[in-house]
């Protein structure tokens, strides 16, 4: 345990050093992270204003709050491992990772924690600025605010584990970008990134909640927004825990099979 902790601390330093090698691209990347929800925010605010100030249960101010919180939740749960994996296999980095006596998932976890520690404070400041500019309104209660924390952490764990599992498709196919595209399209639609789920057709809502997508972004966002009751939040946390357990199982199985396939074929 102690050595794992040391590994995490060292990976933090490595990530920190790497990120500061590319300050300019880091800034550009963060602008991108802000722009996407901002576009949806402006579109929905305009539609809402044209509709007499609200759509469904969302007022214009609630839309602003929704997309600003969503921006932060998305940033917190975002991973790039699916884009990275094919490169790692092709360039031989994965071989070196397999030669080491630790599971490579640890360095990805540490890498994610560190990069988020750097980017989140900046994005939070931006989010506060946007909240004032767009008159964001949220109905958060102390209980929901407390439950938001495990909700957010579980959302990150779930998204990270699922994407790590999917990233391993690179062990079997060289056409990973097609898989990535399908996944990110579904995520965009079913996690609530395009619009709050409650505004989408019922069938889509069911699909989003039966599948893991909603629990990775939409759920913690709506939780902090006060769109969910405390009971609903507790049930949601339960669903997240079940999904995380499934995802842990998937990561392990797919990793074992993936390494076997890799070791059979070689690169």
């Amino acid at each position: 345990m102690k050595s794992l902790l040391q590994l995490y601390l060292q990976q933090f330093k490595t990530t920190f050093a790497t990120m500061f090698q590319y300050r300019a691209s880091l800034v550009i990347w963060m602008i991108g992270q802000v722009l996407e929800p901002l576009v949806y925010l402006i579109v929905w605010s305009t539609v809402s204003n044209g509709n007499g100030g609200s759509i469904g249960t969302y007022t214009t101010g609630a839309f602003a709050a929704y997309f600003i919180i969503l921006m932060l939740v998305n940033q917190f749960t975002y991973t790039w491992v699916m884009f990275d994996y094919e490169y790692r296999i092709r360039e031989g980095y994965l071989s070196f990772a397999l030669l080491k006596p630790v599971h490579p998932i640890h360095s990805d976890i540490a890498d994610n924690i560190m990069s988020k520690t750097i980017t989140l404070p900046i994005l939070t400041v931006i989010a506060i600025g946007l909240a004032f500019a767009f008159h964001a309104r949220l109905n958060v209660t102390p209980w929901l605010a407390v439950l938001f924390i495990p909700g957010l952490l579980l959302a990150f764990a779930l998204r990270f584990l699922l994407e790590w599992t999917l990233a391993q498709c690179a062990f079997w196919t060289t056409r990973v970008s097609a898989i990535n595209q399908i996944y990110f399209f579904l995520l965009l639609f079913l996690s609530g990134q395009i619009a709050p789920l409650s505004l989408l057709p019922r069938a889509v809502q069911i699909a989003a909640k039966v599948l893991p997508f909603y629990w990775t972004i939409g759920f913690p966002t709506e939780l902090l927004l006060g769109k969910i009751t405390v009971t609903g939040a507790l049930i949601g946390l339960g669903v997240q825990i079940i999904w995380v357990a499934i995802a842990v199982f998937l990561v392990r199985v797919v990793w074992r099979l993936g390494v076997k396939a890799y070791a059979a074929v070689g690169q």
Partner: protein
Amino acid sequence: MAGRNPGKPDSLSPPAKLRAAGPVVKIQGLSKTYTVNEQEAGAKATIRAIFHRQKTEVPAVDDITFSMMPGEIVGFLGPNGAGKTTTLKMLSGLLYPTRGNATVMGHVPWKREKTFLRQITLVMGQRNQLVWDIAPIHSFELNRVIYRIPLEDYRRILKELTELLELGPLLVKPVRNLSLGERMKCEIAAALLHRPQVVFLDEPTIGLDVTMQRRIRSFIAEYNKRFGATVLMTSHYMADVAALCRRVVVIHHGHLLFDGELALLLQKFTSHKTISIQLGECQADLNAYGEVLSCEDGRYTLRVPKAETARITERLLADLPVVDLLVEDPPIEEVIDRAFTEWNP
């Protein structure tokens, strides 16, 4: 050694003690066959391939058997595609074999047990493990915690490696700004920080200039001497092999062709020698003595059958006003190349 002095192992010298422990690397009938999709040219073939993929079995390594004693440096030779890298990957646990067995320090490599991984390393000259955007020292530190190297040991080892490989200023430069040779030195250092007992080197000097090759070569020799590490290395540079390896294992088309002393290999495949003689000028016709390869300022170079060398030398000295005479083996590259050609099935 063990048989000679079974009762008193403590009285053995360190290398003998190492050897008494038996082979470090044992390979028995190791084979690897790859399944590859065949791609034919033409639109028709492409469309057909969508529905039915033509698969072929390509044997990369076929039934090879050899072992290595502790502290040995063995040169692993063969032309491109002979199966060298595949073998090294199997021995370091990156590939499952199709058939056969292997143990490295008593472990089955492809089980990838942590105790095994802590004792070995694989350096691939054309791949890199260092984090590209930052200085090597960060990757070294990461390896320190991954291999759980105690801080004091790490500092000492790093100091030693820095001195031996002259890493000093390179440690703090981003990897992407290092030259190929500088990067290779750092790669090797990163791979050896945990003091592996078994070292697999796949073309460690590829693409490097002569000076850098020599430095890496002497470093490998020094590492082997200092820590008694067992080294299996491939190289296209015969100078590497000649300087480091007394023993070589040669494979070709996946088959093991030769396992023994380099000198024996050379002897076996050296069918000719070259004789240089210094005469006054380049006027004489010496084709009666052997094939004349060149003549410059009266210095003739003749190629003669190995068995005839003594007789021809004698005749040359008797018949001609020879000022100077030199008998040489052909360059080692030529011999190895010849070996591969002759073995070609």
